């Protein structure tokens, strides 16, 4: 009678994609499942290994995307509207994604701790959607982008004042290998 799905405990295809991508690019921090697998999940990419092919000097590398272009944009309090500087940065992200079609991206929306848990999940969704919509408007194939909200669950800065909150109100474009996001 019940149509409830049984729990899937095997690893998802994204994990396999991660392993493949790691072997190619020798970078970490691009596995969308890493949070589900208990990873740090700060969206703070950049722990690259210093290998030339995947290094920050390689313009096709995730390290280049994360650090030179910049993988995140910030938001005002309780807002999901893109600022002018965010739009400028996302335009560069879009150009990079168009030039590097072998990558897909998870777009993480985050909130600061000044809000209730449920609301911040919804607010994170809004922020991720704002970035996703902008990238699509710049010509990025929607199938390459997938939003996720972390609400206030994964702050990157831990102090409890505006200097930290400003960094935590963010959307982070996390690259992954593969033609489309499942």
């Amino acid at each position: 009678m019940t149509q409830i799905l049984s729990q899937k405990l095997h690893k998802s295809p994204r994990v396999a994609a991660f392993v493949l991508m790691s072997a190619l690019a020798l970078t970490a921090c691009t596995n969308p499942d890493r949070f589900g697998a208990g990873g740090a999940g700060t969206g703070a990419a950049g722990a690259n290994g210093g290998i030339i092919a995947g290094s920050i000097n390689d313009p096709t590398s995730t390290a280049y995307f994360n650090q030179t272009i910049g993988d995140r944009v910030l938001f005002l309090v309780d807002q999901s509207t893109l600022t002018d500087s965010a739009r400028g940065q996302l335009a560069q992200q879009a150009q990079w994604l168009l030039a590097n079609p072998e990558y897909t991206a998870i777009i993480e929306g985050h909130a600061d701790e000044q809000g209730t848990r449920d609301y911040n999940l919804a607010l994170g969704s809004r922020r991720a959607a704002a970035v996703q919509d902008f990238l699509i408007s710049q010509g990025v194939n929607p199938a390459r982008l997938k939003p996720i909200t972390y609400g206030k669950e994964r702050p990157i800065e831990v102090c409890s004042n505006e200097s930290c909150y400003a960094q935590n109100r963010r959307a982070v474009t996390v690259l992954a290998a593969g033609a489309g996001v499942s």
Partner: protein
Amino acid sequence: MIHLSAYVRCLAATTLTAAYMFGFAAPLTAQDQGPLKIEITQGVIEPLPVAVPDFIAETAQAAEFAKQISDVIAADLVGTGLFREVPDSAYISKVTSFESPVQYADWKAINVQGLVTGAVSVDAGGNLSVKFRVFDVFNDGQLGSGLQLGGSTNSWRRIAHKVADVVYSRITGEGAYFDSRVVFVSEAGSKQAREKRLAVMDYDGANVQYLTDASAIVLAPRFSPTGDRVLYTSYESGFPQIMMLDVGTVTRRQLPVPTESMSFAPRFSPDGRSVVYSVSTGANTDLYRMDIASGQVARLTNTPAIETAPSFSPDGSKIVFESDRSGTQQIYIMDAAGGDAKRISFGQGRYGTPVWSPRGDLIAFTKQANGRFHIGVMRTDGSEERLLTASFLDEGPSWSPNGRVIMFTRETQGATGESALYSVDISGRNLRRVPTNSGASDPAWSPLLK
């Protein structure tokens, strides 16, 4: 597979029996002082002095339980803020036998108003039996009949809570809440990478058992109306999705919401058959209701705003929720089938996480104003708003089974900030930290256990 603790399995299968009534209900003779009764609706409460002398061990095996049981009963009563315990060092009479006549004068002399006596025995089969009486000392009489409760020895704490529930109800005239559990999120690790596990414990923090491991973020568990299942949000799939966990077997399953969407904030209907929850699609978050058996889904809201944190009225006819359709988070009530919603919060600041009281008369909520967070209550028409707490971050109220106490999350600020569980009486008195052996958040109170 998640480890299933023997305790959880055992508790789920345990039923306590009120074996029989004994003795007789001594008539409460009308005297100058009325019968022992706390009117807990009154403004200021002077805690009522009670004595709970160590229960008598009537068999050798009962010795290890007798004092512990009376201690738990006393802790339950004192924990309400409505009672204070007169210590045994003050006693004039020593209770040496359950059947000995109560020396009322000796208890009056030390100003004990409520007296609870009891005896414990363990039979050859390992069954624990507790008999007890409640006395109204200043009226020289017994309050209600003596009662006997039985169960296995490893359920001794539950039996003690049940005794305390009877004492509490007889003196206050209200429903009880001590024999209940709380499901919550146990937290560990740094603020940037907090590990979260579902856990369940007795309402007083005892008997903590973990229901999930820390491999995925879990949020906001909610008990079913009979306490047999828990809904929560998990990042197990990599994305937030609502899950349902069977407490007895500790098995979990994903509810059949579309996997392309993010779902969260689930809560059971009062009949336990459906779930109301939020789904984020793009920038929009709306409320949906799913029939658990059929998987059939109905959309309840249809605005571009954020609608989340839904909670049913006890009769299942209404849903209270939060929405920012006015521009800020506010509380609304609509029919359980959806449709037009009426805003009920109008004060300064933002209102979220509304939860309907089990008595039906109040809505508990989180309020954010001037950089502070509060737990508050208001009537269902939004009137008579009262804030019960204030701190850097209080959120997520959950009602005790009798609608008298609210448990919530309080988080301290800064890099070392940690979450803890607190409870507060709906009068705003008796704020207490609920003991947990690690950080803890998102408490949800079970119904009174059967």
